[in-house]
């Protein structure tokens, strides 16, 4: 498939020039094309923020919902129709801040969707306040004396909760990121990819140069099935490792649901309830 099949004509892109989102869009189109996933069976779910506008620029079905609430929407869609490829794509404020509770509990739920989190360590759309992953000391119009909260580490949280797929990528490296995203898309279950990206408009601390100096890839010898190793590597903060930290293939949410035991037809494709069965149930009541 040609990645250009995912291009959307005539839409005015609202991202700033030089934004890392453009790289992530290229990465996603490439990964989808390589896997041959057609736009018709693809659903993107997003929240609010600059990253959340993503599905408007990629040909697909989409549900661009509320700030922080994309994860529960995605979980439900993939349970109602597991044949769809569901990607939940939004920023770190949306997913780790406003939607923190959904992030935690959907790792436990393990629904089948790929969770792409654009992580630029700053709030872009609201013009430069701290995000959950902002580094300590970063001065912003609100955090005037510098950020004093510990940065949120999505990878350690996810691995601590025994997430089924945990990865980190860097938007500046298209080739490697495509490979990581492809693996995530092929995973049956919840797959987190935290994608680091610069924000040239508002993050003057974590610039292209900064990322260049602060990211590196996990060694080929890293065993993603070793949870303790995965957790240990996710704890590193001096320099940020990239790659697939942890994989634990286990049944996805829908596979654990009674309706799919012995019947693989998507709920969305099943006939409505047999009302005769309901009549019988009602008549059998005491």
């Amino acid at each position: 498939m040609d990645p250009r099949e995912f291009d959307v004509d005539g839409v005015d892109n609202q991202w700033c020039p030089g934004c890392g989102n453009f790289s992530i869009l290229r990465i996603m189109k490439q990964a989808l094309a390589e896997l041959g996933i057609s736009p018709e069976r693809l659903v993107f779910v997003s929240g609010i923020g600059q990253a959340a506008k993503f599905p408007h620029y990629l040909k697909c079905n989409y549900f661009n919902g509320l700030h922080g609430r994309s994860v529960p929407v995605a979980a439900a869609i993939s349970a109602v129709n597991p044949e769809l490829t569901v990607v939940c794509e939004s920023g770190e404020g949306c997913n780790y801040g406003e939607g923190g509770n959904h992030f935690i509990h959907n790792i436990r739920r393990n629904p089948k969707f790929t969770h792409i989190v654009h992580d630029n360590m700053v709030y872009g759309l609201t013009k430069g306040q701290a995000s959950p992953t902002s580094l300590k000391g970063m001065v912003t119009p609100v955090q005037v004396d510098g950020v004093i909260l510990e940065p949120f580490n999505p990878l350690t949280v996810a691995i601590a909760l025994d997430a089924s797929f945990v990865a980190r990528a860097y938007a500046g490296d298209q080739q490697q990121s495509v490979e990581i995203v492809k693996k995530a898309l092929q995973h049956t279950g919840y797959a987190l990819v935290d994608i680091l990206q610069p924000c040239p408009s508002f993050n003057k601390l974590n610039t292209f140069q900064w990322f260049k100096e602060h990211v590196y890839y996990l060694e080929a010898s890293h065993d993603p099935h070793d949870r303790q190793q995965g957790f240990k590597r996710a704890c590193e903060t001096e320099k940020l490792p990239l790659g697939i930290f942890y994989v634990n293939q286990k049944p996805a949410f829908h596979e654990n649901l009674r309706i799919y035991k012995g019947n693989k037809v998507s709920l969305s494709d099943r006939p409505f309830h047999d009302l005769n069965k309901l009549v019988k149930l009602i008549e059998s009541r005491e």
Partner: protein
Amino acid sequence: MKQPAKDDISIVLAGQAGQGIETIESVLVRILKHACYNVFATKEYMSRVRLGANSTEIRMSSKNKVNCYIDRIDLLVPLEKQSIARLKSRITASTIVLCDAEVFTGFGHHIDFQFTAMAEDVGGKIFTSTIAIGAVCGILGISIDLVASKVKKEFSDKKEEIVQKNMVALQKGYDAGAELATAGTVKFDVVTNACVAEDILINGAEAIALGAIAGGCNFISSYPMSPSTAVLSSLAEKSKIFDIIAEQAEDEIAAINMALGAWYAGARGMVTTSGGGFALMCEGVSLAGMIESPIVIHIGQRPGPATGLPTRTEQGDLNLALYAGHGVFPRIILAPGTIEDGFYLAQKAFNLAAKYQVPVFILSDQYYIDSYYNVLPFNLDGITIESGVVKTAKGYKRYALTSSGISPRGIPKNGDGLVLIDSDEHDEEGHITEDFSVRTAMVDKRLRKLANFKDDMVQPRFSGNTNYKFLVVSWGSTCNAIEEALAIIGDPAIAHLHFLQVYPIPPVTKRYLDKAKKTILVEGNATGQFGQLIKQELCVDIDRKVLKYSGEPFHVEELVAKIKKEAS
């Protein structure tokens, strides 16, 4: 001793949480129904798992349907002391009190019944509840075989030894009760009524859950909250028979977003919650308004603000349902009065949501949810599940501007089109827009959707003589108590108009109101929210208000007194 009216007995059993009052209720009503009596039960309980004081009122009758709460107690069985204080005002000279001597010391006359001693005899206090079932059935002279079979069924998942001990306890209680009846100490003469044999016993929560299934509901996501949880657990239970995903969400915000995701993907979703949980869902209601998603929202009301009285009843969240969600968009609010209403309205709610692509509310309350009585099995003739989903073609526009305001709703992977929905203002395709004329067109389109709603409206239920002078106006769970009160008053000048669809207010309402010399609003909240809504929508003043907001349901006696007073 003065005997109560023969055809209608009210039995109240009271005890601490954990003493099995709920079990007594569920077993006794089934026994009574099988013994061919009309039966009604409602419980009041504290927001705790152990101790405290809970009670259940069970009404039985031969001739008449019993379907609401009354104040009068004919037979009171308190299993501990604490409940007496709460029930004191309802105990009169004609109330027969059956209990251990120490429970009622200082309160007046009672019949000494050695529940504790008998239970200890069998093996411990735990058997008190079974003895109580036996005692009541013995007094009423119900066949021991029937009683034993129902009790056995209740304990069917218990060990044989436990079952046996309960049978011994039951017999002890039954014999002692029968003895009281034989001696004439306590005597009730309610004849049986074969007409109820075909009836089913059902409570409000289950009526709503079964109605939801009849409406095609196959997805429910909710966070447990009293008193609404029973709808969630009922649908979860039914998921063993029907294709239903019943998911306990991490919070109410997730619950409503999941339900919206489910509709988007092609399911028919609902949420169930109470006022406080619904407060968290308001943003999701607004989202449904913007993306034009169907959704069914059941709110089991309880008294607020904040945590309020978690296990009590009120009709205080009408305004919350009416105004929930920022921005302007249409909605429909239904409120069941009878058990049958719960079934048919829940069924209808799904078709309305699917057809008009708006949030549809079912507004019940704790009293409604927890009350049950015998009704004819629901009739599903003519009921169909209307999907409202179209197959999409290339170039499909989710928000196509139409004269009805309703755009054909597609779902992903059902045709060649793409389904684009956005919480931002959007164009016909579903892309973000900040174009002022598109914005105006979209607001108009959304508000147009209910313009042709007339045909599907649920009309208010009128009862009484058409030449009425006084009109009692009500909505929701107060329905049956008002009907019984009006039957007791027996004044042909008083009629009753009961609303099952509280919003939009059906246009026919004004005619009914204008005809009345005096309108009397009966509502379970402190300010008369529905009365205010009528005033706002129809410019008609409600003349008198009968309001209650103590946390208890209206009882028939107070309605008789208050309506009589206002209708003069």
